[in-house]
């Protein structure tokens, strides 16, 4: 399952965000006497009334220990009970101080973070730099198969901790010595791999049992019934503003249809993750409920394996790019709940361009496709074996790929054979040269273009589609090492231009985030942003 991490900045379209070098100054300026809480709304100092929120979801929890999780469900709960050094506020665009009042760097290789004073865990024990170092070290050393230690690769490889990686000169200072310059390290500090756990309670070599988690977040875990429910209660010793509610129930459903029924019957207040397009369109007119939308960073695409036919022929890939009718897919299959995507770097991220639209036009162009194939002397119809997976990306995948098949076969240019296997077999075969072309999706780990571009287009990409372009690799190195925003955006733009031309991967759609909310529940629109953190502490009920 993908999806998971957020943490990081979403840059509003058209707004240039502060450079990372400048960030240090900004953070330093922001630090003040009061504990920094830069959440979207000004919560004031009133005591929240006795408010209970019930959230229904179809996710499931792998582990509530930061060292053992890399999935949506676990992260969602962990975000409420733990804290990180930096966090991205609701609707915000930069990592901002959380446990740390500042994190500075001069060369993107050594980062120095200063903790606030007087921090404690929910069990009363003090939170010091020792706990910080402990948290990172155990994550790397435990190297759990389900864990996210790979996110910390800049610090140390999984299972190979180096004592020089973190220094703790005093109780409130933490120094990270990265192995190579990494401009996105502050974003990494907002992900689940960077939750801080108490060194006195958590074992250094094993996972903490789920019902005994201790953190420093806005909530404590009051009850955990695996697969059924989680109950959170406001944490009185949290360093920042108290949540707008006192208790949160998270109810787990196996199927979205059950969740939908529960919503309609008033058994839950909020439904978030994950509904089918039909669920959404049918709930749009429902009494007492409303659909709240927010930007999302989830994307879907299909990739060609450049070592297998017919993906080895660029003209074939370009023709495919020209035949895809993204709007039709968005409207017919997804009922308008997704947007056409014209680049592997989605809209809303700095550096995004409509690369595929610029190169091939927005709508399908069967004549252009025929021309391209003809110029390259490719025999039509081109035989294409296209793979997809039935459940991992939702049931609508079946419809989506049936639709894509129809689009590609328009005009007799392609002859598509659709094949599918279940997810685990699929992942084995797809990345080991098993499929000539296959469906895939992506959720960001953190909200920075690097998480998309580098993951897909570098020669070392997990996709293993054998796309190797030296210029692209060089540009990736530039954006990873640079703290100059203009330079990074320039790199992203050029990469998108090149990869649209060569089209090893065809982007299809970008999802919006949706929550279905009972009337009277407030605050949901504040928290829906590309970080994919659902901040319970912003939710309340109006009487």
């Amino acid at each position: 399952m993908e999806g998971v991490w957020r943490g990081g900045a979403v840059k509003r379209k058209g707004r240039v965000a502060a450079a990372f070098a400048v960030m240090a100054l900004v953070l330093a300026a922001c630090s003040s006497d009061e504990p920094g809480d830069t959440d979207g709304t000004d919560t004031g100092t009133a005591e929240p009334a006795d408010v209970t929120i019930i959230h229904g979801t179809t996710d499931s929890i792998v582990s509530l220990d930061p060292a053992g999780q890399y999935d949506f469900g676990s992260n969602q709960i962990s975000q409420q009970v733990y804290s990180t050094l930096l966090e991205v506020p609701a609707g915000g665009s930069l990592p901002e101080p959380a446990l740390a009042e500042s994190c500075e760097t001069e060369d993107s290789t050594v980062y120095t973070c200063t903790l606030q004073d007087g921090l404690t865990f929910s069990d009363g024990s003090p939170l010091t730099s020792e706990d910080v170092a402990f948290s990172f070290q155990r994550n790397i050393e435990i190297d759990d198969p389900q864990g996210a230690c790979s996110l910390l690769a800049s610090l140390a490889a999984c299972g190979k901790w180096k004592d020089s990686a973190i220094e703790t000169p005093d109780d409130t200072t933490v120094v990270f010595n990265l192995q190579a310059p990494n401009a996105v390290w502050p974003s990494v500090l907002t992900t689940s791999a960077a939750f801080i756990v108490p060194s006195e309670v958590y074992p250094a070599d094993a996972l903490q049992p789920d019902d005994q988690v201790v953190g420093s977040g806005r909530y404590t875990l009051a009850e955990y019934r695996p697969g059924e429910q989680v109950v959170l209660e406001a944490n009185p010793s949290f360093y920042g503003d108290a949540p707008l509610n006192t208790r949160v129930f998270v109810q787990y459903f196996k199927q979205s249809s059950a969740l939908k029924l529960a919503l309609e019957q008033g058994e839950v207040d909020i439904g978030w993750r994950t509904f089918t397009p039909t669920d959404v369109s049918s709930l749009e007119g429902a009494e007492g409920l409303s659909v709240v939308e927010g930007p999302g960073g989830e994307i879907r695409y299909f990739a060609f394996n450049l070592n297998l036919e017919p993906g080895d022929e660029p003209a074939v890939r370009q023709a495919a790019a020209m035949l895809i009718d993204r709007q039709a897919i968005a409207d017919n299959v997804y009922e308008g709940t997704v947007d056409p995507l014209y680049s592997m770097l989605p809209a809303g991220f700095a550096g995004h361009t409509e690369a595929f639209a610029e190169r091939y036009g927005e709508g399908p162009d069967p004549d252009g496709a025929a021309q391209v194939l003809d110029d390259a002397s490719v025999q039509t119809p081109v035989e294409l074996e296209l793979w997809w997976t039935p459940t991992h990306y939702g049931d609508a995948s079946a419809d989506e790929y049936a639709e894509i098949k129809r689009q590609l076969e328009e005009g007799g240019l392609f002859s598509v054979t659709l094949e599918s296997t279940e997810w685990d077999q699929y992942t084995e075969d797809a990345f080991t040269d098993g499929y000539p072309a296959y469906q895939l999706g992506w959720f960001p780990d953190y909200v920075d273009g690097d998480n998309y571009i580098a993951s897909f287009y570098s020669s070392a990409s997990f996709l293993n589609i054998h796309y190797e372009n030296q210029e692209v690799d060089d540009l990736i190195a530039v954006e990873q090492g640079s703290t100059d925003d203009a330079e990074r955006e320039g790199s992203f733009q050029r990469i998108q231009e090149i990869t649209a031309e060569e089209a090893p991967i065809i982007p299809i759609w970008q999802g919006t985030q949706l929550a279905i909310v009972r009337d009277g529940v407030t605050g949901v629109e504040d928290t829906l942003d590309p970080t994919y953190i659902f901040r319970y502490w912003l939710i309340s009920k109006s009487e």
Partner: protein
Amino acid sequence: MAGRSHSLRRYLLTRIALAIPMLLILLTLVFLLMRVAPGDPISAALGGRLPQEELDRRRAEAGYDRPLIGQYLEYLGDVATFDFGTTIVDNRPVTDVIVQNGAATLELTMVAMVIAVVTGVGIGTLAGRYRDTGLDVGGRLFGIVIYAAPVFYLGFLAQLVFGKWLGWLPTSGRASPVVTFELDTKTNLFLVDSVITGNWEAFVDVVEHLVMPATVLGLVIGGVFIRLVRVNLIQTLKGDYVEAARARGVGERAVVFRHAFKNALVPIVTVVGLQFALLLSGAVLTEQTFNWPGIGSELVRYLDNRDYIAVQGIITFAGLVVVFVSVLIDFVNAWIDPRVRF
């Protein structure tokens, strides 16, 4: 009587001895099926997220590449000590899964079984007694049609009618969120717990949530019972002693209920036990439909995630229960009917 209990005890021991190879075969079957099935839990969780080398590395570290024989022997050893291990995908001790989710399934299936027996025996007896009349045809037809309707289809219709349109009953879960949180769960059987703690509000809530799933499942199984009870009753009614009773002038009603019925019921006990497998399959589907947190739906989830430790553990436990139930049934039969022992 000494002779009787001696032969009974010997029968019991033989029966248990026979059960062991059966159990072994079941366990081996589960083990093989899970290991031979494509995929592994790590790829299931993180494939498409991490590069292949990283996945391979994690797989090797977790020991999924070890030779099968070694894993098999280790597995057998663990089962012998009732160590069912810890699930891979959510780090829960499998015994916890069995106890907590198993209790949910137990509650559902027990109530369903009661409904099934009541409907089945009730309608089946009527059908058998008034054979070939409208009552018989009606009863048989009902039994056939209700079994022919897949339990998830019935469940879906029930949710539509009673949940959505009429709004009488909740459509998912064992109890509402607050009740689940506040109920003091000692046995994890919510009905029992709410009674023990005198929490009547919780009791009502739990019953409301139990009604639909248990009735749907119970009716479907009841459909099977109707036919079995009817056939058994008919066969019994042909027996000589029944003829004799009739010849003596005993009223038909007394013939059916006093003479035939008790004997017709004996095979029913066997039949109820044999339906256990059917009950579990039905429970899986019911749990999916009603979002019931039972062991069936957990099994499906673990299967999807290729969590072979969890699947093995659950199936092993199910196998143990099945074997135990069948031994118990045979024992009861042998106790009632001495002919069986030899």
